[in-house]
């Protein structure tokens, strides 16, 4: 019972944040609402017994990626997004599309994927087991992703580096 209450509360927070992300016209507000979404998602993970995932969600997503977003928003000092006729059209199409789509999906899921109950802490999401899995079964994907990250770093440096450095490199 408590479980369901927690779920629905944070689920609502989630959805609210997502909607807010769409509604807000200023990127920084969108970013903050996205952070809210992520935080409440972390709680959902906790409810699902995946506490390690939850922690990583907070650290990586909220703590690193979103900081990066906020940083860029601040750096480029992005202002309100101005309306264009394309935007109005897409609003007219998009919003109903979203509603229809999500309702449809919800209906399908609820009707088709029976009602198995997910009990809290169903499995020990303890770091140890995950580590076992990650470094034995998924070793190759792990290494590959690490290489992916390396490449991403290089790409970011190359892309963001100014053609003529105004000051000694290292400054972001």
């Amino acid at each position, binding site marked *: 019972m408590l479980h369901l209450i927690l779920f629905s509360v944070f689920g609502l927070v989630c959805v609210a944040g997502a909607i807010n992300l769409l509604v807000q016209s200023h990127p920084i507000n969108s970013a903050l609402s996205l952070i809210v979404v992520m935080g409440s998602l972390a709680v959902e993970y906790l409810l699902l017994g995946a506490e390690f995932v939850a922690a990583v969600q907070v650290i990586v997503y909220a703590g690193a990626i979103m900081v990066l977003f906020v940083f860029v928003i601040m750096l480029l000092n992005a202002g309100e997004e101005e309306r264009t006729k394309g935007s109005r059209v897409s609003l007219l199409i998009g919003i109903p599309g979203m509603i229809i789509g999500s309702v449809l999906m919800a209906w399908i899921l609820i009707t088709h994927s*029976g009602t198995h109950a997910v009990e809290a802490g169903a499995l020990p999401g303890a770091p140890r087991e995950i580590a076992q899995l990650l470094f034995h079964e998924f070793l190759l994907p792990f290494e590959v992703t690490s290489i992916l990250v390396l490449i991403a770093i290089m790409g970011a440096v190359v892309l963001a580096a100014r053609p003529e450095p105004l000051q000694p490199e290292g400054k972001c």
Partner: protein
Amino acid sequence: MVPLSYYLVLSGILFACGVTGFLIKRNIITIFMSIELMLNGVNLSFVAFAAQWHQLSGQVFVFFVMVVAAAEATVGLAIIIAVFRTRETLNVDQVNLLKL
């Protein structure tokens, strides 16, 4: 106890929001955030299924998704910065030459 489908519905809604954001927002950064939103929705369903079928691998996949998201965010934001340098705007409607 919460049925699995609820989690899936939640993730579906998040995903739909992400898609919509991607379609209706004008600001590149916001569009990017919509992508992150979609990824989060997917992650939620991953974790839910993991809990449902007692398969830790679901959670492992979440990590991979996160890593990919991080990499993507890094490169994407770098691209955004580069675009902004040349275009002085973040409005995708004005960035329509498909080249810097």
